C-alpha cells in the first residue's frame, strides 16, 4: 500500500514532464529594487487649460513672425489607389513673400503639367496664397472662436526627450457640420504649438464630387525658434473619374526654404499683393 504512493506520483508527473521538454528557464531573483511611492501634489492640467494654452501658443507663434518667404509647391498625383502606378499630373512651384500686416506676393517659378493625348491635361492651376501667417489649416479647431464648435479629448501623452507631447483629438459637436473635419493634433507642451495634425471627414463634405478623403496630414517643422508649415497632404477619392486627374488622387503642398523675419523690403510687394 505504501509502495504505491511513489508510483502514483510518478504517473502524475510523467505527462507533465513529457509535454514540456527543453531548457529550464531561470528567474532572476538576486536583484531587488524598491522605489518609494511619490505623492504627486501638483495640480493636473485640465483639458480646458491645455486648450487655452494651445490657443495662446498658436497666437504667440504667429505674433513672432513679421515676415516670411518660402517655396511653396503644389503637386497633383493621380492613380494613387489601384493597380496602375501613381502618375504626377501637375506640379507648380512658387516663391511666396508675406509681410505684416497683410502683404503677400507669390512668384511662379516653375509649372509642369502632364501632357495627355489631346495636349495639356487641363487649365493651368492657379494658387492664391493668403497673406496671413497664422496657418489656419493647422489650428482651425483650436482657435478661441472654435472652442464651442468642437469637442476635444486627450488621446495620449508621449514623453519625448525633454518634451511632453499631447495628442488631442477633436471632432465637431454638431453632426450637421459635415464640412467640419475631425482629427488629431500633436501638441508640443514646451511651446504649446501644434506640430502635426491628421484630419478626416466622417462624411464627404461634397458628396456630389468627393466620395471620401481617406487621409489628410498636416506637418510642421521648426525653423530656428519658429514652427512653420512643412507639408499638407491629402488623399482624395472622387465619385466619378475626372478628365486628366482620374478618380484617386493626392493633393500635396510642400513648404520649403523658409526665411523668417529677414526684413523683406516693401519694394518686393510693389504692384502686387496688398490685401
Amino acid at each position: 500500500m505504501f509502495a504505491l504512493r511513489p508510483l502514483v506520483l510518478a504517473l502524475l508527473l510523467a505527462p507533465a514532464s513529457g509535454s514540456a521538454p527543453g531548457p529550464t528557464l531561470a528567474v532572476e531573483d538576486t536583484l531587488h529594487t524598491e522605489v518609494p511611492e511619490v505623492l504627486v501634489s501638483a495640480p493636473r492640467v485640465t483639458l480646458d487649460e491645455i486648450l487655452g494654452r494651445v490657443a495662446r501658443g498658436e497666437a504667440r507663434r504667429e505674433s513672432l513672425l513679421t515676415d516670411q518667404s518660402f517655396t511653396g509647391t503644389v503637386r497633383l498625383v493621380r492613380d494613387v489607389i489601384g493597380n496602375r502606378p501613381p502618375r504626377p499630373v501637375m506640379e507648380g512651384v512658387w516663391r511666396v513673400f508675406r509681410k505684416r500686416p497683410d502683404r503677400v506676393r507669390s512668384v511662379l517659378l516653375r509649372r509642369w503639367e502632364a501632357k495627355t493625348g489631346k495636349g495639356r491635361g487641363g487649365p493651368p492651376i492657379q494658387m492664391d496664397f493668403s497673406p496671413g501667417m497664422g496657418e489656419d489649416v493647422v489650428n482651425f479647431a483650436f482657435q478661441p472662436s472654435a472652442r464651442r464648435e468642437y469637442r476635444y479629448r486627450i488621446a495620449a501623452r508621449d514623453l519625448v526627450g525633454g518634451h511632453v507631447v499631447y495628442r488631442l483629438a477633436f471632432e465637431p459637436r454638431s453632426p450637421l457640420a459635415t464640412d467640419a473635419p475631425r482629427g488629431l493634433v500633436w501638441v508640443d507642451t514646451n511651446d504649446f504649438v501644434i506640430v502635426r495634425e491628421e484630419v478626416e471627414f466622417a462624411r464627404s463634405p461634397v458628396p456630389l464630387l468627393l466620395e471620401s478623403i481617406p487621409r489628410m496630414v498636416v506637418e510642421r517643422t521648426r525653423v530656428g525658434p519658429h514652427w512653420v508649415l512643412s507639408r499638407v497632404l491629402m488623399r482624395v477619392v472622387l465619385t466619378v473619374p475626372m478628365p486628366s486627374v482620374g478618380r484617386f488622387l493626392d493633393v500635396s503642398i510642400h513648404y520649403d526654404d523658409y526665411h523668417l523675419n529677414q526684413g523683406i523690403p516693401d519694394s518686393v510687394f510693389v504692384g502686387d499683393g496688398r490685401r
Partner: protein
Amino acid sequence: MTRRAARGLLIGAALALALAGGRAGADPGGSDSLDTYLRALADSTDRYFGISAAEVDTAGLDSALVYRLAHPHLERRGGGPRFGPWFSFDRAEGALWGGTAGWGSAGRAGEISARLGDAAGPNAWRGGAGYRKTWGARRGTSPRWNFEATGGRFAGVLDPDRGASFLRVLRALGDGSDRQHYSLREGVRVAVEREAPAWRAGLALRDQIELPLSTTTTWNLLRRPPEVIFNQPAVRGRARELRAEAAMRLPFLPFHMEGAFAASAEALGSDFDYDRMRLILGGEVPLAGVAAAVPQLEYGRLTGTALPQASFFLGGHNSLRSLPAEELGGTVKALARLDVFFIPDLLALAHLPHPTALPIQGALFAAAGAVSGHDPYGGAGAASNAWPARAAWRSEVGGGLLYRPGFPDPRSSLRANWAWPLGPGAGVRVSLEYAAPLDLLRILK
C-alpha cells in the same frame, strides 16, 4: 557589503552614468528627440503618400526667381475683369436676359460689380452697379468690416425677409408654380457691417423708389396655368429706410440670436412712416451623434404704415411648409419650428444599392405659426395686437428626404417635404426646397 548589495550598487551607478551621459550629449530641451519623433511620424506619411510626399526638385528655382523678379510683367495679376451671364424668370418680369461683370477683389482694393439685362415682360432694362470691400481677416477674435454700396433698378421679391433663389426661377419657368410676389426698386443702398466670430452688427441706409409690378408673363415650359396669376402690387413711393441688425451666439448654449430693426419716417425724407422689427432665435442640438434637433423661433412686427412690401408672410419652406409660399400676410408674425435631422444615409441603412454620391438623409418637423394685423392681400385682417390671436395659429407636422450635394453651400440640402396641417385644412402638401438647417438665421461662421 554583501555581494548582492555591491552588484546593485554597480548597476545603479552604471545606469546613473548612462543617463547622465545621455543628457549631456543631447539638446537640453530634447529638441533632437522631438525631431526624431516627428521624423518617424513623417516617415509613415511618406510611406502612405509615396511620390506625393517626395521632396521637391529645387534645381533651377533660384535662377527662375531672379529672372521673375527682374521681369515682374510676366506675373499673372489677379483681379482681372470677370464676365458672366444673368438670367431670371418670373411672371412680373418675364424672361430676363443679361450679363454681369466684376473687377477686383473685396479683400484687396475692393470689388466692383455691375449687371445689365433686358426684362422681356415689361420690355425694360434692369441693371445697376455695386462696390464691396472688406477689411481684416475673420480669424480668431479679429473682427472683419464689410462695406457695400449698390445702386440701380432691380426687381425683387416682395417679402423683405426672402432673398434670391434659383428654385424660384425653376418653379416659375418650369410649371408656373412660383407663388411669390414682386416689386421694383430703384435707388441706392449703403451698408456697413462689423463681423466677429461671436457677434455681428450692421447698419444700412437705402433711398429707393418702390414701384409696383404687374403680371406680364403667364407661360411656362410645361404650359401649365400659373398657380398664382396676379402679382400683389407694392405701394408706390420713396422709401428712405435706416436698418440696424445684430446677431450673436448665446454664451454657453448652442444657439444664435438675430435681431433687425428698420425704420422709415418722414423725417428721413421718406414717403412712408413705419417701424419694422424682427427677432430670431435658433440653434443646433446634437442627439446621440446620429441626429440633430434644430429649433427656431421667429417674431416680427410692423407698426405704422402697413405696406405690402414691409409686411410679414407665412407659408413656404422658411415658415409653414403645409402652406403655399406667402399664402398669408400680416403686420405681426410668430413662428416656432422644430426640425430633427437624421444623419445616416437612409439608403445604406435599408441596404439599397446606390451611388456613393447620393446619400439620402431623413428629417421630421413640427411647426406652428401665425400672422395677424393688416392683411397685405386686402383681406379683413385682424386687430394689430403685439401677439397673434389664438384663432390665427396654424400648425403642422411632416417629414422630408434630403440630399446634400455639398455646394454651393456646404450645409444646404435639396429637400422634398411632406407636410400635414394639424386641424382643419387641406391634406398633405409636397414641396421642394434648397435650404440650410438653420434657414431663418444668417449663421455666424
